[in-house]
C-alpha cells in the first residue's frame, strides 16, 4: 500500500460515523529553473495534502491539511462545514467502488531523480543551447493520488513526469521548444534546447505586418494553448450547463472543419495517463469533436446529476485548486492529418504567417468562443509556400470557429505538450496535438519583437 493510500485510510477512520471521502495528493518534485543559462530559481518540494469531504444529510463540508497529526481536527473542520451547509438536492452521493483500467504512468528512472540529477539535466539543456542563452527549466517529480471513501471506494495511483522547457534567446532573437513525458527516457533536454536555438537563430530582424485576416501555420505549442483556453468555458460541463459554452445548442452540429477531431483521453499511454479522476470515477475517453461535429463536453458526478437525463460522469472531476471551474479536459488528443512536416503545412498556406507559440491568452467572449493573445518566440511570414522573414509578436483576436473552421491540413504525428504550469499541487497533464494550417487567423495588432 502506498504512503498516500495509508494516509487516506487513516483520515477516513478519523471521520468514522460520517459519509466521507478522503483524497490524498502527494508530491516529491524538483524544478531546476534557469535564466541566462544559470539556474536561479530551484524549487524542491516534499508534501502531502489530505482533503476530507464529509456529507451529512446531503450537506457537504470540505477541509484539508498537510498535518498528518491533525486528522481529528480535519474531521472536525469538515464536519462543521457540513453542519452549516444547505442540503444540495442535486448531490449524487459519493462515488461507488469501481474497477480501474490498468494504465502505465510510473517510471522508476524518472522517480529516482534527485536534486543533483535535476540540476545536471538542466545543465545538459544549457550546454546544448549554442550561441544562445537558455531560459526555462528541467523538472521531474512523483505525484501520488489516493482516494478512500465510506462507500468502500479505494483508488491509488503514482505518476511520474519529466519536462524540459527551453527558451533560447538573446536581445532581438528567441525560439521555443519543450519535451514532456511520464518517462525520462522520452525527454531529451539537449534536443529541446537545440530546437529552441535553431528557431531563435531565424528570428533576428523581425518586422511588422498590417492587421488583418491571415492563413497561418500553428505549431503544436500554439494549438495546445488555444484548446486549453477554449476549454475553460466551452469543453467542460459547468460552462455548458451555465450557457457560457460555444457548444451550447450545437451538440450534434458541424462546428469545425471535418478534418478536426478532438478527444480527451487520459487512458492513452502516449499522453499523461491516469486511471481515475479526483472523485475516484474511472477515466473515459470523451469525443469532444468528431470530424468537425460537436459531440460532447466532459463531466463530473455533480454536473452529470444537475444535467439529469441519465447523464453520468466521464471521469473528469478536477483537482481541488480547479474545483471552482468544474470538470475540464486534461488530456487532449487531437487527430493528426496527412501532412508529413511543418514545411508541407506552409505549402498549404502559401501566403500567410507561421506561429510557434502563444502568450497570455484571455477569453473575450466565452459564448462566441473568441480568444485573444500574443504570438512569441518564433513568428514568421509565409511567402510562396515557404517560411520566410521573421515577424514581431502579433496580437490575435480569434473566434475558434474561424481557426478550426477551415483547416487546410494537419501534421500526421501529434506531439505531447506539457499543460502543467506547476501552480498548486503537482498534477501532470498534457495535450497530444498536431500542428495545423488554418485559413483564418485574425491579427489585430503588433507588439514587442522576439528576444529578451
Amino acid at each position, binding site marked *: 500500500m502506498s504512503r498516500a493510500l495509508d494516509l487516506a485510510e487513516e483520515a477516513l477512520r478519523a471521520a468514522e460515523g460520517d459519509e466521507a471521502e478522503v483524497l490524498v495528493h502527494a508530491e516529491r518534485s524538483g524544478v531546476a529553473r534557469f535564466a541566462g543559462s544559470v539556474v536561479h530559481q530551484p524549487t524542491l518540494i516534499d508534501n502531502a*495534502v489530505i482533503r476530507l469531504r464529509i456529507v451529512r444529510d446531503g450537506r457537504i463540508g470540505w477541509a484539508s491539511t*498537510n498535518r498528518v497529526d491533525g486528522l481529528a481536527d480535519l474531521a472536525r473542520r469538515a464536519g462543521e462545514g457540513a453542519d452549516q451547509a444547505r442540503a444540495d438536492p442535486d448531490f449524487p452521493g459519493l462515488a461507488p467502488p469501481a474497477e480501474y483500467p490498468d494504465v502505465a504512468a510510473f517510471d522508476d528512472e524518472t522517480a529516482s531523480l534527485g536534486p543533483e540529477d535535476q540540476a545536471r539535466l538542466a545543465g545538459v539543456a544549457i550546454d546544448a543551447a549554442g550561441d544562445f542563452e537558455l531560459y526555462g527549466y528541467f523538472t521531474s517529480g512523483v505525484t501520488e493520488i489516493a482516494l478512500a471513501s465510506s462507500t468502500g471506494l479505494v483508488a491509488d495511483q503514482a505518476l511520474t513526469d519529466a519536462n524540459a522547457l527551453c527558451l533560447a534567446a538573446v536581445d532581438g532573437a528567441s525560439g521555443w521548444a519543450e519535451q514532456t513525458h511520464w518517462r525520462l527516457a522520452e525527454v531529451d533536454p539537449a534536443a529541446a534546447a537545440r530546437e529552441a536555438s535553431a528557431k531563435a537563430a531565424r528570428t533576428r530582424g523581425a518586422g511588422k505586418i498590417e492587421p488583418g485576416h491571415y492563413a497561418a501555420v500553428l505549431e503544436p505549442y500554439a494549438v495546445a494553448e488555444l484548446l486549453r483556453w477554449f476549454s475553460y468555458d466551452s469543453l467542460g460541463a459547468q460552462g455548458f450547463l451555465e450557457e457560457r459554452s460555444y457548444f451550447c445548442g450545437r451538440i450534434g452540429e458541424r462546428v469545425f472543419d471535418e478534418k478536426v477531431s478532438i478527444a480527451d483521453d487520459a487512458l492513452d499511454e502516449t499522453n499523461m495517463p491516469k486511471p481515475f479522476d479526483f472523485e475516484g470515477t474511472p477515466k473515459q475517453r470523451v469525443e469532444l469533436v468528431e470530424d468537425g461535429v460537436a459531440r460532447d463536453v466532459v463531466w463530473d458526478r455533480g454536473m452529470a446529476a444537475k444535467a439529469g437525463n441519465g447523464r453520468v460522469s466521464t471521469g473528469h472531476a478536477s483537482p481541488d485548486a480547479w474545483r471552482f471551474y468544474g470538470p475540464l479536459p486534461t488530456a487532449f488528443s487531437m487527430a493528426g492529418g496527412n501532412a508529413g512536416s511543418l514545411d508541407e503545412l506552409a505549402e498549404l498556406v502559401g501566403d500567410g504567417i507561421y506561429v510557434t507559440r502563444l502568450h497570455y491568452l484571455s477569453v473575450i467572449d466565452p459564448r462566441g468562443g473568441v480568444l485573444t493573445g*500574443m504570438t512569441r518566440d518564433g513568428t514568421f511570414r509565409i511567402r510562396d509556400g515557404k517560411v520566410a522573414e521573421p515577424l514581431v509578436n502579433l496580437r490575435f483576436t480569434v473566434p475558434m470557429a474561424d481557426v478550426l473552421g477551415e483547416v487546410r491540413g494537419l501534421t500526421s504525428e501529434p506531439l505531447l505538450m506539457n499543460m502543467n504550469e506547476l501552480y498548486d499541487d503537482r498534477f501532470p497533464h498534457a495535450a497530444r496535438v498536431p500542428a495545423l494550417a488554418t485559413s483564418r487567423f485574425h491579427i489585430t495588432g503588433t507588439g514587442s519583437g522576439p528576444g529578451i
Partner: protein
Amino acid sequence: MKALAEAAVDAALGAGASYADARAVTLRRQHVVTKNLQVDDLSDSESEGIGVRVLVDGAWGFAGEGRLDEAAAREAALRATAFAKAAPGRHETSLAPIDPQSGDYRTPLERDPFDVPLSEKVDLCLRAEEGMRLPEVKVTLAMVRAQREHKFLVSSDGAAIEQDLFECGGGIDAYASAGEISQIRSYPSQHAGVSAQGGWEYVEGLNLDTEAPRVGEQAVALLSADECPSGRTTIVLSPEQAIMQVHESVGHPTELDRVYGTEAAYAGTSFLSPDDLGNLRYGSPKMNIVSDATTPLGLGTFAFDDEGVPAQREAIVKEGVLRGFLTSRETAARIGAGAGGSMRADGWSRMPLVRMTNLHLEPGEGSFEELLADVDDGLYLETNKSWSIDDKRLNFQFGTQIAWEIKKGKLGRMLRDATYTGVTPVFWGSLDGVAGADEWQLFGLTNCGKGQPGQEAHVSHGAAPARFRDVQVGVSG
C-alpha cells in the same frame, strides 16, 4: 517555529552555505461559495511547512518540506544546499547589504474572520444571491473568503521576524444569457471579488447584499445593449479597471527580475532596461505611481518582506518619468540602487520572487463628473472582463464587463463587449486626467501569477477614475 527556522539556517550554514534564510509558515484559508442559492463550496484548508533558501558559491538552492519539525527543517536545508552545489552556470549572486532586522507585526483588525460563524457567512452569500435573481440571470454566485498566514523568518544576515497576516474578502457575480448572448456583471470586481488585509469588518463594508440588485439588473440590461463600436476615442476607466491597467502595464514591467530576464520563459520580460531608471518617459505628467507596502488594508502590506527588508513607500513613476523598480536584495545589488523590499513567496513551498506589494495610481484632482465633463464623445469602461498583454508588457488588450457612451460630458447608453487596446508608453502618455482623492479606491486581487513553479501573489492597487485620449476601442474577432 522560530527555533525550527534557526535550526534550518544552522544546518544550511553547516553544509556549506554562505547565506541561508528559512521561513516557517502556517497558513489557513476558508472559502464559502454559494451558487444559484445552493452552498457550492464550504471549505477550510490549512498547510504548514518550512522553506529554506541558501546560497552556495553564488548559486541558489531552495527546498520546502511540508512538516514543522526539526528533522524536516534540517532535511530542507540539506536538500537546498545539495541542489545549490550541483547547480550549473556561472553564479555571481550578491545581495544588497541590510542591517539585522527583528520584530513582529500583526494585521490590525476588529473582528477575526475565523471567529465569524460559518452560518453568518453562508447567510450573507445567500442574501446577496437573492438580490441578483431575475429570470434572465442563469447563474448567481456569491463568495467570501478568509486567510491567516503566520510566519517566522530567520536569516543568516540576522533577520528574526514574526508576522501574522489576516485577509478577508468577497464578491458577487450574475451571469445572464439569452439566445447567443451571455453576459456577466460582478461586484466589487471580477476575479473572485476583492480582498483586504483586515478583519471581517471589511467584508461587512462591501455591502454585497445591498449592491446585488444593481448587479443582477445590469447583467440583464447588457443582453439587449448595443455592442461597443470600433474606432479611436477618449476613454475613462473606472477605478477597478484602472488598477488592472496599473497592474499589467506598470507593475509587472517594473519588476526588476523581469527586466533582467529571469521570468523570460514564462511570464515574460519587460520593455524597460536598467538604464531607463530616472530617464524613461513612461507616461504623461499626470501619471504618478507609488509602491507602498504600508497601505492600510493592502494585501501587500507587511512590516518586512520575505527577505527581511523593512516595508517601504517609494515612487515608481513620478510625473510620467520612471523613478523606481520593484526589487529584491539581489536585483538591488545588481542595479546599484535600492535595497529590495518586494520579495514575497506564495506559502512555505515556494522561493520568494520580486512581486508587487501595493501599487497605486496616485489621485489627481476633481470629481468623476468633472472628468467626464471634458469628454465630448467617448466611452466609460467599468469592471475588467478579459486581459492580455505581450511578453514585454507593451501591447495590451483589455475587455470590460460594461461600458457607457459619454456624450457631451454625460453618460449615455449602455454598451456590451467593450474592448480597448494600446501600447504601454503611448497609452500612459495619453493620460490627461485622474480624479481626486475622494474618488480613489483600493482593490485587493488574489490571482497574480508568476514563477515556475507557479506562485499566486495577493496584491492591492488603488486608483481613481482616469481619462485617456485617442485610444483604439472595439476590437473583435
